[in-house]
């Protein structure tokens, strides 16, 4: 017994010392003081971590200070599993960043989300948001989700310096893009850099491509029918969007490293080839957030407007823009949660994150001048000026459909000849995932 104690004693002392040190740098947390109009605390779960988390906290801190509310923020990237488990286990957060409108609809169907009709003043909300965002935040006729931040999909990124060296020009229209792609391939470099790998979510960058083609080839009506489950995957419209993607992504001549490289490359490395010397690709299709990867991967080379820039994917039969966005929903009806939801939709709140960088605001009240750089301002403009804006279809689909779509992209790039069976399989998933 005494010998055992010999080992436990120093450990106990160590822990007491550590505990004391820890207590030393204790400082009052945010929201501990304030006018205390509300007081209490609020629990929030979202996917934001690291710099995003800091930006999100900067956004809500003014609110917390004003109302004297303590914020208990938790971050997880596995938000589906954590939210589902905590909801089923009877311990949901007060509010949460939802993975997408598709999952929001599932939570709403199980009556887990609080309806926001009497939380958010809809008249003011309508003034600041286009109707599309209200519709996207509704499920089964109930308004349950608010958008706080969004991104523009379908940017085509290039290296202006490399373009100049090779004598390439930014294309005016889709025919111009096709000609440019052929030209680059003929000059001996595969034109596209593609990265589809993202662990369990692998394949999603391909769904963005297919959505872009779907919207531009067949128009917003067909696009909306498609994600609503009313247009078959085997239809000509969807098939031709797959084929347009595959003509480039599944062909060795057009993808840096060949389709196998596209399947294996992490999406954040997909555009690396733009920065090689000489370039190993000239074009990269990705949403507006890709710039942070350029800056991380090539801190000495990547420079906005000089070595990277973007143009929007040109229209084909139709013109338009696909957008993505971050949703928040309320699981517990507390005064603090109501107040924070009201705050999150204000232009003042969203402007904070916009100014920090990395976010576009869906709120019309946020001025274009708030954007910290040229590229994010142009992304925001592209969204405002587009004649049609649709939301990322895969995020709108039921989760099971979404996951099947991701995998289908991988299967298709690996075996483009199997398109028929891949689409038939997606039809089968469509049949049982929309039922509800």
């Amino acid at each position: 017994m005494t010998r055992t104690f010999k080992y436990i004693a120093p450990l106990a002392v160590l822990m007491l010392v550590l505990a004391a040190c820890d207590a030393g740098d204790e400082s009052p947390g945010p929201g501990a003081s304030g006018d205390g109009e509300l007081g209490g605390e609020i629990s929030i779960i979202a996917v934001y971590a690291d710099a995003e988390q800091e930006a999100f906290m900067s956004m809500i801190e003014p609110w917390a200070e004003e109302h004297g509310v303590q914020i208990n923020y938790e971050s997880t990237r596995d938000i589906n599993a954590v939210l589902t488990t905590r909801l089923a286990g009877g311990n949901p957060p007060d509010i949460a960043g939802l993975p997408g409108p598709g999952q929001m609809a599932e939570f709403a169907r199980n009556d887990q989300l609080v309806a926001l009709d009497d939380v958010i003043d809809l008249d003011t909300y309508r003034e600041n948001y286009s109707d599309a965002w209200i519709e996207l935040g509704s499920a089964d006729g109930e308004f349950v989700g608010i958008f706080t931040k969004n991104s523009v999909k379908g940017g085509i990124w290039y290296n202006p310096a490399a373009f100049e060296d090779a004598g390439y020009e930014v294309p005016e229209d889709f025919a111009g893009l096709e000609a440019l792609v052929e030209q680059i391939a003929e000059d001996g470099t595969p034109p596209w850099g593609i990265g589809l790998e993202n662990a369990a979510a692998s394949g999603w960058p391909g769904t963005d491509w297919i959505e872009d083609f779907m919207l531009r080839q067949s128009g917003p009506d067909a696009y909306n029918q498609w994600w609503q489950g009313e247009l078959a995957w085997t239809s000509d419209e969807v098939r031709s969007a797959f084929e347009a993607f595959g003509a480039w992504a599944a062909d060795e001549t057009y993808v840096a490293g060949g389709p196998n490289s596209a399947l294996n490359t992490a999406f954040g490395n997909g555009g690396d080839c733009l920065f090689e010397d000489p370039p190993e690709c000239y074009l990269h299709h990705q949403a507006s957030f890709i710039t942070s990867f350029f800056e991380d991967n090539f801190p000495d080379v990547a420079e906005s407007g000089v070595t990277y820039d973007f143009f929007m994917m040109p229209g084909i039969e139709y013109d338009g823009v696909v957008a993505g966005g971050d949703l928040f929903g309320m699981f517990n009806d507390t005064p603090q949660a109501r107040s924070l939801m009201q705050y999150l939709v204000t232009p003042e709140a969203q402007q904070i994150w916009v100014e920090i960088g990395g976010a576009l605001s869906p709120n019309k009240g946020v001025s274009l001048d708030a954007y910290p750089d040229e590229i994010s301002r142009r992304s925001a403009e592209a969204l405002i000026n587009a004649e049609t804006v649709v939301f990322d279809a895969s995020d709108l689909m039921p989760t099971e459909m979404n996951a099947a779509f991701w995998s289908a992209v991988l299967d298709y790039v690996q075996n483009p000849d199997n398109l028929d069976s891949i689409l038939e399989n997606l039809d089968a998933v469509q049949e049982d995932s929309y039922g509800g």
Partner: protein
Amino acid sequence: MDFGTVLMAIIVVIGVPAATVGYALLTERLLKLVRPQRRAAVRPWLWLLPGFAFLGLYLIYPTINTLILSFQNSNSTEFVGVENYATLLNQGGFWQTMLNTGLWIVFFAAVVVLLGILIAVLADRVRYETAVKALVFLPLAISFVAAGVIWNFMYDFDPDRGTVNAIVGIAGVEPQSWLTEWPRNTFMLIIVGIWMWVGFATVILSAGLKGISTELLEAARMDGANELQVFFRIILPLLAPTIAVVATTIVITALKTFDIIYVMTGGNFGTNNLATLFYAERFRAFDAGTAAAVAIILLLAIIPVMLFNIRRFQAQEAIR
């Protein structure tokens, strides 16, 4: 907070261990309340009580719950009979999932157990035993998020980044896409599993090996047995119960492998096993019923393992 932290430190280091020892001492006191001739019959239940209280609450009750869920619809509002099981059996990738599960059991378990025995026995004979055991143990100590990073370094398609492709490149082989072609990808994932779990087998087998008396081995050597004979005639039979424990645990680990597949391929390219299928059904398809059915199939899959263990106990009882 400061007072709370100190209090927590005291509870953690002194209170909790004392409470567990206290319980054991309490059992004899409690037995004093029982008539002497009944004590031997009551005693085992007092020793089992805390364990089964935990097992009941944390594993048995959830399992019964899962069993019920498996006969209900996706949001558990009504009973649907065996529909979930039928859906599962007719699902496109289900048999490939079962096949992968089988590959994991056969190749992962066999290699881990054999290598574990080999390393434990060999390392037992050298002075740097601890170093060898530490090296094979290391992978399990690395949290899986980081191990995922390591193996991306290994399997990356780009030979400028992927170690394995860089190595085969020296031999003039084209870069291979290790994780996208079935069944090769399942074997590549099994290699990751082997790398992680051999240390587990080695450490436990090594503990078992220390229980074999030196005199016995020396006596055999005196009698002129060579090292192979000593291994097969003395070490292996005496180590058999420990090997059985390790093998059982490793087979179950193979069945439950989740992190490796989820992080490396996400179950794509035909790499799903039952554990990743469970996750996909529960948290992607939000289908509590079908997910529960997967969990029940997982439970059924270990019946052979349990039968093997029953036989083993009966044999052990007979000789003791």
